[in-house]
């Protein structure tokens, strides 16, 4: 598979959220505002790419048995560093994201991509494509939830009193329904069932 195909795959056919059901915690917990989806998506992509770079650089000195522990430590360290940076430059956003930002450290999507056994260039293209796909999916879910739940998109009111917002969409149970429906739509468009990828 070419690098381009590997890159595109992460955006649609193997989208982490909508096709592979990975990294769903922020998708359900925090995307009641679209901006949260964008920030968590970009942060996760940055952490994934830096962890991939470290994995590539340390590939020759770590064996398979300890690689998972190196991955866990690496992701935890980068999450903490990014958390501290966000605390300095975007403290309000960090408060808004609550516990969901630190939870990037245990995001199943990141570990699943790090566990791929591929060449360094493919690993990087895969991480970039998956990161963009993840960010796009979280943003899409955020836009839909914010529109239905609060009548606004990225904080801009689009329903001015003509229709009452359906606040359930902004809650976690509403997130379950919207993510489930979006996954079913993706399955219908791609002609596949909704099997859970191991």
């Amino acid at each position, binding site marked *: 598979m070419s690098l381009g195909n590997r890159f595109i795959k992460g955006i649609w056919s193997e989208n982490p959220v909508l096709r592979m*059901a*990975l990294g*769903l*915690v*922020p*998708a*359900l*917990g*925090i995307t009641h505002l679209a901006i949260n989806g964008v920030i968590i998506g970009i942060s996760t992509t940055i952490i994934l790419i830096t962890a991939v770079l470290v994995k590539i650089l340390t590939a020759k000195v770590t064996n398979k*048995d300890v690689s*998972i*522990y190196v991955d*866990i*430590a690496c992701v*935890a360290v980068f*999450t*903490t560093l990014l*958390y*501290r940076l966000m*605390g300095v430059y975007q403290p309000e956003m960090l408060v808004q994201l609550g*516990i969901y930002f*630190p*939870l990037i*450290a*245990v*995001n*199943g999507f990141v*570990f699943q991509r790090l*566990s791929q056994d591929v060449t360094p260039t493919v690993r990087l293209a895969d991480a970039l494509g998956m990161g963009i796909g993840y960010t796009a999916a979280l943003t899409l879910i955020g836009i839909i939830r914010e529109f239905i739940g609060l009548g606004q998109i990225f904080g801009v009111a689009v329903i001015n009193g003509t229709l009452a917002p359906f606040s359930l969409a902004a*809650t*976690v*149970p*509403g*997130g*379950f*329904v919207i*993510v*489930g*429906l979006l*996954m*079913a*739509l993706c*399955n*219908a468009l791609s002609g596949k*069932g*909704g*099997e*859970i990828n*191991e």
Partner: protein
Amino acid sequence: MNSGLDLFTGGVITQNLILFQGLGIYALLHFTKSIGTAFKASIMMLVSTLTACAFVWIAAPLMPISFGMRLPVYLAIALAAGLLWHKLWIQFTAADSDRSILTAFVNSALVGILLSIPQELPEGSAVVSYGLACALGYGLVLIVMAGVRERLELADVPKPFQGVPILLISAALLALALMGYRL
């Protein structure tokens, strides 16, 4: 007494980790294929959580005040507790060192419990009680959803909804039912 009971019922039902905080979704999708698997995952989560909360209890006097400083400590405690029990599990059950087992011990729900320990909570055993309540709520949802999933296997679900979508929508219905206790 009432606040302790509120904290406990909050952890189990009204602030349930999976249904109302969206944590531990990986477990919801992967460890609810049968009631037995869900029960095992619940036990793993319970022991990891109690161990992590006990660490927090012991380390409470040394814990930094600001959340930003506590974050690496909480991450280290959650990962240490999870990895410890993962190693013991492999040793005693002679199971393969499988990533999926590791994810049962080290997951977003465990870290989420530590990160969401209420600041006003008195130090000490209350932290362990809070962890116990959250882990019980987590296990309860896994076991109930495993039962729901076994019934769904027999239902005629449209193809696009098969698998994860119908499971998420079923979880939403369970959450809506439990939402009644929050009013």
